[in-house]
């Protein structure tokens, strides 16, 4: 129950500053029109974070699709390493795994790590699993790609029990719609 308690208070604390909007039908453009993506319909988007696209259907801890774009030099802040365009996709994936471990999931398990075409460029697709303090398993998919000096990440997060399998198709459709430039 500890996670509930931490989230209860955090929610009360932060909620007053968050703004939301329903997702519509058309594609959504990223900052500087650097990408476009079609989001699942009638989900809720957190509009108070302008540097990223974050959507959920029932709550960000139950299912969350997120798209971020950062300058390659700032790609791995915990590692204090940039994403170099000479890196192979497999090396980019390695750095992303190390970054996730450093960010609070040192015991995560990598379930899948394969090359993937993201927005037309070659990147990686990772699927990881970790437990929270109550022993509940969460799974995440992280798809990353480097393009013209920027590092793009499209991710999905959900509890393994019930939610992950149910809403993964929504993520995969979103991913398939992602276009660079």
């Amino acid at each position, binding site marked *: 129950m500890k996670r509930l308690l931490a*989230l*209860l208070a955090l929610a*009360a604390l932060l909620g007053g500053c968050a703004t939301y909007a329903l997702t519509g039908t058309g594609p959504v453009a990223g900052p500087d029109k650097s990408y476009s993506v079609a989001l699942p319909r009638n989900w809720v988007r957190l509009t108070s974070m302008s540097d990223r696209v974050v959507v959920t259907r029932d709550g960000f801890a139950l299912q969350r699709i997120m798209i971020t774009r950062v300058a390659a030099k700032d790609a791995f802040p915990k590692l204090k390493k940039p994403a170099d365009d000479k890196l192979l996709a497999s090396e980019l994936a390695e750095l992303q795994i190390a970054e996730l471990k450093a960010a609070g999931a040192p015991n995560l398990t990598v379930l899948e790590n394969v090359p993937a075409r993201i927005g037309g460029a070659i990147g990686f697709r990772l699927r990881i699993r970790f437990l929270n303090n109550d022993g509940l398993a969460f799974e995440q998919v992280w798809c990353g790609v480097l393009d013209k000096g920027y590092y793009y990440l499209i991710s999905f997060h959900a509890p393994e029990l019930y939610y992950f399998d149910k809403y993964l198709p929504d993520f995969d459709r979103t991913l398939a719609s992602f276009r660079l430039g």
Partner: protein
Amino acid sequence: MRRLALCVVLLAPLAAAAQTYTYLDQSLRHGGAVHTALLVTPDVAVSEISAGGVVEKIPQWSKRATHNVSNALLRVGLGPKLHFTELPALSDREQHALEQHVALFSVVASQVHSNSLAGGELWAKRLKSGLTDYTVGPGLAFLADKTGADTALLMVARDAESSGGRKAVMVLGALFGVGVPGGNAFAVAGLVDLRSGRLLWQSFDSSISSDLREPADTNKLVEGLFKSYPGAGAK
């Protein structure tokens, strides 16, 4: 970090009042059937906050408070609408399955909580729309088979008693593991359908001055929780 600090300042004045909300699934909105609820052992903790701000759970106080909450649940006059039944002995595997689903309930409940309290108009409308998917999944159906109950009642209650005059209000939950927006004690209860896992009802109440070690205070807090249960008070 700055953004967080700003939000704390804005929210602080609002936090003083007690807060409540209720979530009700469509199936319960229009009367709904009689439910038999398995009483999962309530998760109750009473802690003391030292002068240095360290939160220390006190086992004896927590035991007393758990006893008070269990008694308060039995007193709640839900009459024909909701019967409680005790959890039977479970095998290790069954116990593990229950714990996993209770852990998922924590997450589900926290989302209902944050969306209810701080989700604004959009979430308020969405929570009433019947379109949400709040569930622990079908993994607890074995308990329905085993007991004949159709639902399970899950409860969490926390009380933070300060020593040395330190204010317990707004002890930041994310840091201390005690979520107390608006008071020093709160309780959250949720009813889930054992076969589908669907969340049928969730209620939250916080109070500035409850002491869960005292039966009278506990009864009041728990009664407050169940006021919103459909048909509550009907005998």
